[in-house]
């Protein structure tokens, strides 16, 4: 034992840099390397999923069938959602967690570095399986990402590939989540008690528990689909005594916590950025933590608001309606805390702050349309219309995606050691903001007027608003090339040298490290005051 101990020390002291060559990325267990891999993977998937969105929008530029067949249109809506949710947003958050959690809590690395490596490298295989279905007879899955039976059971040869790729994504997320919980609970530097933890760490602790609780339920639901199709079970087949509505209940028991998995880390990110550019501490930090915990708890008891129209007892509809509306209270607490942080502060508007402010403003729009959808009698009109599309895109694009971009701009100089191009960053923000609203705001109106989602054709009177949305989508897509350019320039270390604190008002252990940080940081734990 004593011998191996000295060997280990030796090893640590003399290998402070990464191994050279491509195999570095395959075999790495370093949290910074894996964070980088996750973020690049997410960016690639963001462009893949985005191109599919452009196919959808191009088809909808004119009424009638103009570019693609309806079957292919449905494949695009399905794949766009699966790729954006499981391939772009979730890996981006895990990538940020990998980069930041150990540096924020003063740990040398993640708790389970090999699990971390495995968790990432499952993803390329999962998405290869999923994307390969585009070239199969019968095409890719076209049932919508919610995979409702019996429709999803009509998927052709793609079906088992869809199910197995979702199993792989689930395994990857669960491994990432277990690793994050173990890191946060076991690896904190001495003196870093739970309430001293930065909010991004808190947001990920809660998110990781949500992932551990609901990803297995999704795995169970898709396994039931698989056995219904190939092994003669009848969970969802009416002829065998099953019920397709049961799938919706199980799916949304996963699905609603999932939407908070997609937003809680975003809350964490903007809670770092707003105080930094307001140059004062976050207002009501403890209430932020309790609000996130309350949102996480409520997310388990509101799932049926996704399926009011399948029919349920009045008492159940009322329960799910009121429970859903209750979520507005902790969410409101968070919004008001961010506003109170800005109140009478010396704000400056660098790119990360612009994205964070855009987040607060536009996420609130998405939250309010969510409240409208929670109202049972109104939901019967809104259900499966473009209003729903407008709602969840407002919380996911100027919500989650803006927060991710804000986070990348905020910490990129820390990671690379160079400042990105601020002029281009601001241009990216303004173009993105204008086009994102041009894309999604008209969808509220065409949805209220009755245009259904997931249909490649529409009534003539919706043409103008659809054309606005399509132009917005193309502009949004092209604007992201600016982001790609900025990130590549930073990765090539082109730019002014960044200071260790990067921004004037930053707080936190990660800003006490050099920019860029050494390959191994906090090998001896820091002291937390």
């Amino acid at each position, binding site marked *: 034992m004593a011998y191996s101990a000295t060997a280990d020390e030796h090893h640590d002291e003399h290998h402070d840099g990464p191994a050279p060559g491509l195999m570095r990325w395959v075999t790495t267990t370093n949290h910074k390397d894996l964070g980088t891999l996750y973020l690049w993977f997410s960016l690639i998937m963001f462009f893949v999923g985005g191109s599919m969105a452009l196919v959808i929008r191009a088809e909808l530029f004119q009424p009638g069938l103009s570019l693609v067949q309806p079957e292919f249109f449905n494949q695009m809506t399905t794949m766009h959602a699966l790729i954006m949710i499981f391939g772009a947003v979730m890996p981006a958050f895990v990538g940020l967690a990998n980069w930041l959690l150990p540096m924020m809590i003063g740990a040398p690395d993640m708790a389970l570095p090999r699990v971390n490596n495995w968790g990432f490298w499952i993803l390329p295989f999962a998405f290869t399986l999923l994307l390969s279905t585009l070239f199969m007879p019968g095409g890719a899955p076209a049932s919508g990402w919610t995979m409702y039976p019996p429709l999803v059971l009509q998927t052709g040869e793609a079906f088992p590939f869809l199910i197995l790729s979702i199993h792989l994504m689930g395994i990857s997320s669960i491994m990432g989540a277990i690793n994050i919980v173990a890191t946060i609970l076991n*690896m904190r530097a001495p003196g870093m008690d739970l309430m001293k933890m930065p909010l991004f760490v808190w947001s990920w602790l809660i998110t990781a528990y949500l992932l551990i609780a609901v990803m*297995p339920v999704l795995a*169970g639901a898709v396994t039931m689909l698989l056995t219904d199709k190939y092994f003669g079970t009848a969970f969802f087949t009416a002829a065998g005594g099953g019920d397709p509505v*049961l799938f919706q*209940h199980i799916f949304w028991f996963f699905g609603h916590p999932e939407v908070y998995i997609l937003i809680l880390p975003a809350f964490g990110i903007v809670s770092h950025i707003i105080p930094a550019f307001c140059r004062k501490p976050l207002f009501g930090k403890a209430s932020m933590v309790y609000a996130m915990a309350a949102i996480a708890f409520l997310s388990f008891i509101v799932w049926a608001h996704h399926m009011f129209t399948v*029919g349920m007892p009045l008492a159940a509809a009322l329960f799910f309606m009121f429970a859903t509306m209750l979520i507005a209270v902790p969410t409101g607490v968070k919004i008001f805390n961010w506003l109170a942080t800005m109140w009478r502060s010396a704000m400056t508007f660098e790119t990360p702050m612009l994205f964070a402010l855009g987040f607060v403003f536009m996420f609130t729009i998405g939250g309010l349309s969510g409240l409208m959808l929670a109202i049972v009698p109104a939901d019967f009109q809104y259900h499966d219309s473009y209003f729903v599309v407008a709602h969840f895109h407002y919380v996911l694009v100027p919500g989650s995606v803006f927060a991710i971009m804000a986070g990348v701009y905020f910490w990129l100089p820390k990671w690379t050691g160079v400042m990105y191009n601020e002029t281009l960053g601001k241009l990216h923000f303004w173009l993105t903001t204008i086009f994102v609203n041009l894309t999604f705001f008209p969808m509220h109106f065409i949805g209220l007027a009755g245009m259904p989602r997931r249909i490649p054709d529409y009534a003539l009177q919706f043409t103008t608003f659809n054309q606005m949305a399509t132009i917005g989508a193309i502009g949004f897509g092209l604007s992201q090339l600016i982001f790609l350019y900025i990130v590549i320039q930073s990765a090539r270390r082109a730019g002014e040298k960044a200071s260790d604190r990067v921004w004037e008002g930053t707080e936190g252990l990660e800003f006490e490290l050099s920019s860029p940080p050494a390959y191994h940081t906090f090998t001896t734990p820091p002291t937390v005051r």
Partner: protein
Amino acid sequence: MSDEHRQQEARSRGNLRMAGKLSVLVVVMFGFGYALVPLYDVFCEITGIGPGTVDLVAAEEQEWVADESRTVTVEFTASLNQRMPWEFRAETRTMEVHPGESHVMTYYARNLREQDMIGQAIPSVSPARAAAHLHKLECFCFVEQLFEAGQGRYMPVRFVVDPDLPEHVDRVTLAYTFFDATPAGMHAPVDVDTASTR
């Protein structure tokens, strides 16, 4: 130095223990997904909606007192699941009945395929609150139906709407969907794509 190393080892043991505990939670939640299946049936039974209330056995014959003062319209619909190659229709679209009287109507089904098939019809009643008051005394849905290749037949349904039907319900729909219940081994599988383009 060895002190620090011991600390590190204790920490990595702690990490593994934590990962172990969380993995148990993962397995439990996977099981919970499956536990939702029986829970759902219990929930449906308590609330009286969903498949738990679909009765595939004949209702008990009772002496209901016909309520001649009330007339209820009963509608009949027929549909086929997915691409089932059958013809299926209700011979009567609607019927005016008094609660408490038993009536007979007829469905017609025909197997269009050149192979024997077994079908299972699943009934559904709407509005949901009328479901408990429409009793099927005789129905082709109580057993699986074997249809030889190309065979068609008329099938009676004897039913009664009981007088406890809530006051404000004056229209009840009885819908049947035929599902393909042919066992996989009964004959060679038919290529679904050629079947549907025919």
